[in-house]
Every structure is written in C-alpha cells, then in structure tokens.
C-alpha cells in the first residue's frame, strides 16, 4: 500500500472546491432508467446514475438495495430488463463482460474472486488480457513479437503489483495471501487493464480502520492517473473521506444524491441507511 503518510486533512476538499470540480467535469458514465428483475423482485428500478470524469463517486444504500446488481448489469454479468448504460457516449447494451472491460470499465467483486491457484503476478498479468493480442500460433511458436508482448505484460504487471504493495508476494498463490492483501490484489488486477473507470464493490469490507485509511490514500492517488472511480461502500469514513459525489439507493430506486455532507445530513438517508446518530462511544 502507498506509504506516504499524508495527514487526512490535506486529502479532504472543501465544499466549494468540490462544487467547482463537479461543474468542470463532464459525465463519462451514466445509467438511464436501468431496471433489473429477478422473478417477481425488482432489484433495480428505473435507476439513474451519473459519474463524472476524474472523480470518485460512491453508491450507498441499505443491504439488498440493489447496488451490486447495478454493478453486475453495468459490467455485463446480468442482462438489463430495461434502460441504458452509457459509457463515453456509447450504449453498452448487450455487451459481454469481456467486451466491456475492453471499453475501459474494470471491476472488483464484493466477495473477492481471484484466480486462487495462480500466483499474484499471474493474476495481475491476466488482467492485461484485453490489452494484448498475440494469438494461438504465435504463442505456440513463440515468435519474437509474442515474446516482446509477453515481456511487456510482465513488466506492467510488476509495476502494478508494486503499486498495490504486493511485490513481495509476486510468486505466492493468490489464495495463500491475507484477506486484505487479496482485496488489493483484486484492485491490482482490475488496474492492470488500464481502465478509465474503476468499479469497486465494498473495497474496504474486512479491513480495519487503519487499513481503510491506507485504502483511501491509495484510491486518491489513483486519481492522478486520470482514472474515474465508482464504488459501493458501507464504511462512512471511506465514503465521506473520498467521494466527490454520492448516490443513495434503496429498494432499487434512487432516494438521494449530492455532495457527501448533503447526503449525510439528508433525513431520508438517515432514516433508511445511516440510522439516528445516537451518542458515539467516545
């Protein structure tokens, strides 16, 4: 994990700064009346979501609200029952997951899904699959072009591994590293595809407060790479700490959106999601 120990304050923008950024940035990604049903259950219901270029947007909401389902529809794992997903002006309807990542949307999963019996390095190398093209025959014959590409893949993977702080585990099987590290590895794998939009499903779950903070710093550092981030989170420290924009959903519908602190103080959100702020322990 990134080692610089910036204090939290410098990482948090003021309200005005945030508003300004929001104005400048254009929307790169949006869903339009997205709907997904499971049998009788409408998990996502005419849901609109906007994500602006170069920002961190958060999607929050009670358990079972349909957040993960939105992600699954967006990344092509489920087929939408209605509505559109637009990325960089292009409708992603009917695209398969492997095509969507090629368009520049990479994701992680709520329950980590790594290639457990492959090494960390291989996991990250696999992430570059959609950015490489050597075919079967050149691989069988190991043509110079193929070797060159393979070297590049390896080089990039090493860089990514270092970036997520897992360099020393490069040869370890993914299933053998600690949980928190697996989360970082999954992010590393997603990053390896050089995405424009990174979608993270509860990246901080299972991390303790300290580790979550490191994660915040890491995610912020990614913005420098011209990356847009959309995340689902339940940890309010993370959500409030890094998001430029927060969307709240409940029972498949959007119930609020706005700047973090607006949402935080929105009575509907408090009612449905945050709970009454009874006296904190300290």
């Amino acid at each position, binding site marked *: 994990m990134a080692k610089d120990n910036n204090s939290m304050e410098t990482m948090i923008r003021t309200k005005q700064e945030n508003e300004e950024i929001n104005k400048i940035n254009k929307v790169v990604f949006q869903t339009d009346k997205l709907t997904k049903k499971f049998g009788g259950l409408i998990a996502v219901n005419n849901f609109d979501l906007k994500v602006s270029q170069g920002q961190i947007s958060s999607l929050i909401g009670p358990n079972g609200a349909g957040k993960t389902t939105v992600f699954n529809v967006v990344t092509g794992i489920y087929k939408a029952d209605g509505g559109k997903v637009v990325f960089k002006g292009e409708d992603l309807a009917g695209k398969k*997951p492997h095509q969507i990542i090629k368009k520049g949307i990479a994701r992680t999963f709520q329950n980590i899904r790594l290639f457990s019996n492959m090494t960390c390095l291989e996991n990250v190398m696999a992430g570059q699959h959609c950015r490489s093209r050597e075919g079967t025959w050149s691989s069988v014959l190991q043509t110079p072009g193929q070797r060159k590409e393979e070297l590049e893949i390896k080089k990039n993977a090493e860089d990514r591994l270092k970036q997520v702080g897992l360099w020393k585990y490069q040869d370890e099987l993914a299933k053998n590293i600690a949980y928190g590290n697996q989360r970082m590895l999954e992010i590393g794998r997603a990053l390896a595809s050089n995405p424009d939009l990174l979608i993270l499903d509860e990246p901080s779950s299972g991390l303790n407060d300290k580790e979550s903070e490191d994660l915040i710093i890491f995610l912020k550092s990614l913005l420098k790479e011209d990356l847009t981030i959309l995340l689902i989170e339940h940890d309010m420290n993370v959500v409030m700490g890094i998001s430029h924009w927060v969307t709240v959903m409940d029972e498949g519908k959007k119930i609020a959106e706005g700047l973090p602190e607006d949402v935080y103080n929105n009575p509907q959100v408090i009612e449905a999601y945050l709970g009454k702020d009874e006296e904190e322990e300290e």
Partner: protein
Amino acid sequence: MKLNKNIKEKNSIFKKWLIILIAILFIVLPFIINAYWVDVLFFFGIYALLGLSLNIVLGEVGLFDLGHMGFMAIGAYTTAILNTYFGIPIMILLPISAIAAGAFAWLVCSPIIHLRGDYLCIVTIGMGEIVRLTLNNNLFGITGGPNGVFGIDFPSLGSIFIVDNSTKFYYYIWLIVGLTIIGLVNLQRSRIGRAWNCIREDEIAAEATGIDVKYYKLLAFVLGAGLAGVAGNIYASKLMMVSPESFNFMESCLLFCIVLIGGMGSIPGVLIGSAAISLFPEFFRTFAQYRMLIFGAAMVAMMIFRPGGIWPRKRGAAEFKSLLMKAGEENG
C-alpha cells in the same frame, strides 16, 4: 531473496539435465529392448499424445471431457477413408485429420460450450458415443461398420521417407510428442495458457477480467481435438485399420485418468500418467484375469496417496514457499 534465486537456478539446471537424460534414454531405448517393448512404448507415445490433448481441455481449462476418443476417431477415420478410397498419403493426411477433428469439435461444441461441469461432461460422453455408434452403423456406407476400414498405408512422404517398422514408428510418434510438448509449454507460458487457467479458476472473474470465456473454451476443444486427430492418424496407420470399438467410452475414461493420475495441467504429469495407464497392463498381463483387478485397485490407491497427481503442476515459487516467507519477512 538471493538464497531463493540460487535454489531456483540449481533446480532448473537439475531439471534441464533430467530432461536431457530422459531424452537420450528415449533415443537409445529401441536398440536395447525387443520389438514388442518398442511397440509398447509406441502405444505409450500414442497415449501421451492423447493425454496431452485432453490435458488442454481438462487440465488447463478444467472442462470435463469424457468423450475425447470421439475426436481421435474422427481423425483416424478421416485418415482411413481418404487413404483407402483416394490413396492420399498418410503424412499429408496428418494435418488434414487434425483439421477435421478440430472442425468437428468446433461444430459440436459451439452450441454446448456454455454448459457447466457435469452437464458438459455428459454431453461429451454423448458426443463420443454418437461418433462411435454412427461409425459402427456404417455411415454413408464408407466407415465399414463394425469391421472398420482395412488396408491403411504406412506413413510416408512419397518413397523417400517411409515409416514401416516398429522402431521407425517409435521415433515418429515420440518426435511428434516432443514437438507437441514444446508447443504446449510455450502455450502454457503465454496469455492463452493464462486465460485458460483463469477460466478454470473462476469463469465469472475471467470474463470480467476481459477473457472471452466461450472463445477460449472452444479454442481448447479445437486444439485438443486437433491433437487427438493427429494421434488418430498415426494410430490408424500403425494398426493399418480402424474400427469403432477402439474408441469406446472406457478408453475416454482412461484418458481422463491419465491427466488426473499425472496431475492436472502438468505436462510431465501427463507423461507419467500415460506411462502408468499404458505400461501397467503390459507388466501385469501374466496375472490374466486378476490384472484388471490390480489395475483398478492401483488407480484407487494412486488417488489416495497422491490425490493431486504424481507430478502436479507447480506455480511460481509455491515450491519454495517457506523460504519466500522468510525472505518476505526480511524485506518487509
């Protein structure tokens, strides 16, 4: 870290020598043993080739294929029919058989490739049986029904090069096995091999990582079938005949065992597995009816004592795990 590297290097040097040693042994072997054992080793080679071909599907991608003999049958019959009816030389038919088997795999697997686990398994069984039964029913009157097709030539390129005795067949098959191994090792170390392994580990994650799961599964089937087709070509020309009963379900099961006894996805493992399956019965033939009893018991015992296979594939530094941990601690 340095210590670690040293051991790795030593290990790979040791491996290199081991490979060279085994290669030399294989080259001189026909001069030491009699023709019967040369033939036994030839069939070992056939099984090795088949094992390698199934290993692509089963070992690398993790697809249960219990009808692999069907692909070999396609290759063998392509060779048999084109050779006996049109007199096309066997060696020219080698790539043609491979393409025929591969094309067949592509055709029949396309619609079923989305099936999972055991559902795919039964479909491959069904496919293998369909091939065998259709051949047995003398399709279009050209497969010869249960008698099969007789009078297939030896492999030759004109009159310059002809494979016509046990020793030549032995070198011929092992040359092909050798080339196949090189090709497959290269594949294992490429993005293709990685994509296959990813699919085996987690299909959904693989798809989300940008791997076209359907395409790569089909690719594995087509390549595996193509190699099985090559094996079929050589097999047909060695026996000078083909008949449907050589491609029955039991044989497909034995191929499955080859891959698992050796160790999924491990190329040395496949060689060991095919040795076990093809040599064991020869050694124990004197036990007559008890032979298969022992064979079955050995299979069970093998899995109990080495469930991961005799020579499982190792990845990265899994072999030096404890060392690496120490190194990691020093560094970190």
